């Protein structure tokens, strides 16, 4: 335990401290330890782990809704393109990047874009087709600044170069999974799994006897299934599950 003593100032001590404070001020006035990053003129280089605007790779996306469903702010909503793709509402996005962390295929990625001002709220809803390419932002900078600490002293290192705002995507290795039925006896026959599948990987065959449908045969097309798990989460009786395939 450290005991913080009560301070009693006598005249000498007080004067000494006045002189110290003034001395520090004059020292700084003569030789300042300046730390300012003059932003529009120069840009701070953020590390590659930076969480900025999100870039989307449509080829990898499996429309699994994980990004939309993990989003704490409900900023990601799926939008119909050739498949359902995520769209981000930057009026809600909090840049937690849970979506990127959740994406099993690595189709969402971060970028270093963060210094953006919008004129209208409507412009802030960004569809999937606008996220594929790195957006152009207004740049006025001529320098890039690195914050470095050298010999226990904090310095700004200016370089006459433009920082690349894109962040190389990180490879995600998740074992391939497909959906299987764990308990066919409990299947209700509701076919929601087939209807919710964005890849049409579950087919329904109606078996007719005397022009009457007597049963459905559901089949998982293993080559089409990407293991997005939407059907598993949709099943009202929890009879489906994901299984790893080698």
């Amino acid at each position, binding site marked *: 335990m450290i005991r913080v003593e009560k301070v009693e100032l006598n005249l000498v001590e007080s004067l000494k401290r006045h002189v110290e404070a*003034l001395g520090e*001020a004059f020292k*700084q*006035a003569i030789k*300042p330890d300046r730390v300012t990053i003059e932003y529009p003129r120069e840009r701070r280089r953020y590390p590659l782990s930076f969480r900025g605007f999100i870039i989307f790779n449509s080829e990898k996306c499996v429309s699994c809704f994980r990004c939309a469903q993990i989003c704490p702010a409900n900023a990601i909503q799926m939008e119909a393109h050739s498949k359902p793709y995520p769209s981000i509402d930057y009026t809600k996005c909090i840049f937690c990047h849970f979506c990127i962390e959740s994406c099993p295929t690595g189709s969402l990625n971060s970028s270093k874009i963060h210094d953006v001002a919008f004129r209208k709220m409507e412009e802030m809803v960004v569809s999937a087709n606008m996220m594929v390419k790195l957006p152009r932002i207004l740049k006025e900078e001529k320098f890039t600044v690195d914050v470095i600490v050298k010999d226990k002293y904090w310095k700004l290192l200016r370089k006459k170069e433009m920082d690349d705002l894109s962040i190389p995507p990180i490879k995600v290795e998740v074992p391939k999974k497909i959906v299987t039925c764990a308990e066919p006896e409990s299947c209700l026959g509701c076919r929601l799994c087939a209807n919710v599948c964005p890849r049409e990987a579950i087919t329904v065959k109606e078996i007719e006897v005397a022009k009457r449908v007597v049963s459905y045969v559901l089949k998982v097309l293993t080559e089409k299934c990407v293991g997005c798990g939407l059907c598993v989460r949709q099943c009202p009786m929890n009879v489906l599950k994901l299984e790893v395939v080698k």
Partner: protein
Amino acid sequence: MEALVISHQKQIGDKMLEGLISGLFKIFTSNMMNIPLIEPLVDYLMQIPLVNLLVALILWRPFFAVIILPGLVGLLIYLLWIVYWERKLTARVQWRVGPIEVARPIRGAIQALADGIRYFFQEAIIHREAHKIYYIQLPILAFIPILLPLLFIPAGNVVGIKTPYGIQLIVAFIALIPLFIVAMGWASHSRFAYIGSLREAFMYFAYEIPFIIAVVAMIYVYGSGDPYVAVEKQNIPGAVLNPLAFIVYIIAMIMATSRLPFEIPEADQEIAFGPFVEYSGILFGLVMTLLYEKLYLMALLFVILFLGGWEGFYVGILGDFCAPLVLFIKTVVVISVLVIVRSVYARYRLDQAIRLGWTSYLTLSIAALILGMFVGVLV
């Protein structure tokens, strides 16, 4: 007949005008600045009718003192400079840059001008509950005690009104300024403005007495209230002659102009700019500069009393202009150094400031007075 009368009257009018112009011209030229540097230009301009009157007026010493330097124009230049410098110096102490992008090539030196223009064109709100007439008039009326002392501040032989009681008069007029601030607070009709006015009034008594005593001490030293005598006697600067008065004066100057650590009447974190809380637009522009102007006046007096006034260097080519320039430069330098306290100190509490004023500084000032008496006998 009628026409004759009219032409006669016209003639009389013309004659009168002629007489007036020539009379004025005579007055102006009799007491003109002698600046060798611009003499050819002046000579050339003097040959053009009417322009010569204007030139003569400008170079007329009393006019020059009041309007040009150290008067109004000097004040304006000083204001633009000090606002910028204060922000810049503070920024430097605080590890940052300060205003710079306004005009990048001159490092943002016209930032205060931009702010001024913005204030000028901004809506000036007079709120419903304010005492409307006083509310508008007071910031403008406050210029009276600012401008009047300029008449009595001499710079060499450039002077508005020459009087042996110059120092006393300046002090008297400076003492008027707080009244206007208090009145502004009352006219604003806002609780924070009330509190601010009250604080200003309290502070007024805290600093004014040591201040006056310090000035009186210096008058003792020089044996006269005449600035000329004061400057003349400063072979050794007044600061050395009476260092106690010097210290008291500096502290009083900081207190009187509400600079940190005595920024008590304004105290934006406590009472939101106190008396000025309701002012906006150009009116706020006026009241904001009020204290800077007060600082300017006090610093002028300070330079005259303690730092040898306009005595410094003499450049022959500048002639009479040299003295006002020296005085102005000294003043601006003094203030420029002084503004560093803004970045060093926190604000004292009102009671602490008053206690300081009524105890330590009063004692110190009385000691200065006694010292002044002795020094006065010696010098």
